[in-house]
């Protein structure tokens, strides 16, 4: 039986989907997290604790452990674990991306440098030290601009500034976010931020799989809600895209060029691009799959999940089809409207009854302390829809969301 190591941060939404996919494939599953499982001492052959902030240390630990438990694949399920997974795979000679490529994709400044050097369209950018005077830093930036941390994800800490005053406020706000207890960044990512040109236009997300350096587009999602700031909260994703085929081909081509520039060759890719009259601009390329529970929108071949597809690729198993099912699908990440404690959720039944809605998953628990963007990093839940057209999917998601009401105090 093949043995698979999954790197699962204790705070990821992705655990259930990956564990179920591994179970479906019948592999011998080993799970590693950054904090110990209560059962680790009783099940040392299947539960591990690794320091995800120390990829080489984690790789050495797994190399030692795997002498008694040979591994066939290692998969990091989200941003926090991609570099560690690459380091472990490199040490064990397993299929994965080069460590340097994944590390570059994890650092927005390094990523912009790589892509710009390769001629991939990216916003103009500058790295700024948090110890510097923001007023002076603002003088070297054109407005409007976007300030963002180097290594956080899910739009956390991303703020648009139209003026010097807004720039200074955003600069201080991001500095405070990077010092929060629930933000685990260190080194360069804790000392710098990125300021870049605001690129107007539509935003899309490309979900892909790299196989031997070739990018296969699994799905292209439109994001129909405008993302113009001041914060960049993601809400609705709908696939297939309604953009003209010629533009979709350009998006794929630019994303493939970005992967090549970074040196990414194997495994999942989640890219975010802006599209305007000048064409596609790469905002982000991450060596991971789509976050949250959003992958529930995707099914491939004869019902294969995205996670199953990713695990099959990592294991070197055959994949019958990379074609997504034809029916349009979408997800809405339910935003947190304000800070406070979740007291009650209303309207789930009528929301679930809206035509086209498959599921309303409330992931925040009653009593949970909620924090909206840019400080926050969670969602109230997810709404999933399938319908005959992308327009009908979007309509169903909006209608279902309108039924939901959250008491936050």
């Amino acid at each position, binding site marked *: 039986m093949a043995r698979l190591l999954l790197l*699962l*941060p*204790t*705070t*990821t*939404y*992705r*655990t*259930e989907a990956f*564990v*179920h996919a*591994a*179970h479906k494939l019948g592999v011998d*599953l*080993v*799970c590693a*997290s950054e*904090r110990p*499982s*209560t*059962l*680790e*001492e*009783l*099940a040392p*052959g*299947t*539960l591990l604790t690794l320091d995800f902030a120390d990829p080489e240390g984690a790789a050495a630990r797994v190399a030692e452990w795997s002498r008694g438990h040979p591994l066939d694949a290692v998969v990091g399920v*989200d*941003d*926090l674990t991609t570099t560690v997974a690459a380091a472990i795979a490199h040490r064990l000679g397993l299929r994965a991306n080069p460590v340097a490529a994944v590390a570059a994709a994890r650092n927005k400044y390094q990523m912009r440098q790589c892509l710009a050097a390769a001629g991939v369209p990216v916003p103009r950018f500058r790295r700024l030290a948090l110890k510097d005077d923001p007023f002076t830093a603002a003088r070297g930036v054109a407005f409007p601009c976007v300030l963002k941390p180097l290594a956080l*994800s*899910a739009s956390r800490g991303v703020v648009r500034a139209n003026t010097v005053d807004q720039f200074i406020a955003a600069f201080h706000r991001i500095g405070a976010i990077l010092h929060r207890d629930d933000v685990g960044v260190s080194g360069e990512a804790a000392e710098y931020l990125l300021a870049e040109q605001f690129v107007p236009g539509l935003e899309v997300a490309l979900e892909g799989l790299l196989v031997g350096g070739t990018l296969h587009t699994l799905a292209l999602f439109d994001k129909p809600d405008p993302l113009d700031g001041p914060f960049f909260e993601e809400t609705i994703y709908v696939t297939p895209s309604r953009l003209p085929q010629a533009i979709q081909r350009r998006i794929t081509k630019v994303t493939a060029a970005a992967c090549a520039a970074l040196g990414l060759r194997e495994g999942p890719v989640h890219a975010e691009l802006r599209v305007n009259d000048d064409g596609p601009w790469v905002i982000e390329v991450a060596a991971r799959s789509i*976050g*949250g529970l959003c992958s529930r929108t995707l099914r491939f071949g004869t019902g294969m999940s995205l996670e199953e597809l990713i695990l099959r690729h990592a294991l070197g198993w055959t994949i019958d089809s990379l074609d997504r099912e034809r029916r349009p699908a979408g997800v809405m*990440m339910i935003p947190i409207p304000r800070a406070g404690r979740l007291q009650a959720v209303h309207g789930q039944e009528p929301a679930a009854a809206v035509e086209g809605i498959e599921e309303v*998953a*409330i*992931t925040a*628990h*009653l*009593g*949970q302390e909620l924090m909206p963007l840019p400080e926050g*990093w*969670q*969602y109230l839940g997810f709404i999933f829809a399938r319908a005959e057209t992308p327009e009908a999917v979007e309509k169903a998601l909006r209608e279902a969301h309108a039924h939901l009401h959250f008491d936050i105090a």
Partner: protein
Amino acid sequence: MTTESTGKNGDLKSRVQDLIDTMINPAVAGHGGYVELIDVQENRVYLQMGGGCQGCGAADVTLKAGIERLLKEEIPEIAEVLDTTDHAAGSNPYYTPGKA
């Protein structure tokens, strides 16, 4: 779900219960959690998780890489361990997930 608590199945159920009581629950109590045996049918064990385990982001890891592995090692005839927990109703999960 009907409960068969006699004969071979009843014996299996009591062995599972014993392992839950002596090995699993003392361990998951470290995170404020507990596990209840709901039933054993055709070598499938049905469990419910509570306390810190209910709604926990790592519940599937605890179940599949921990509990299922332990039970199968001790009782090889067990085919699968299934979770019947309503995790959405968990009000005090040990780990709360976020998007990445």
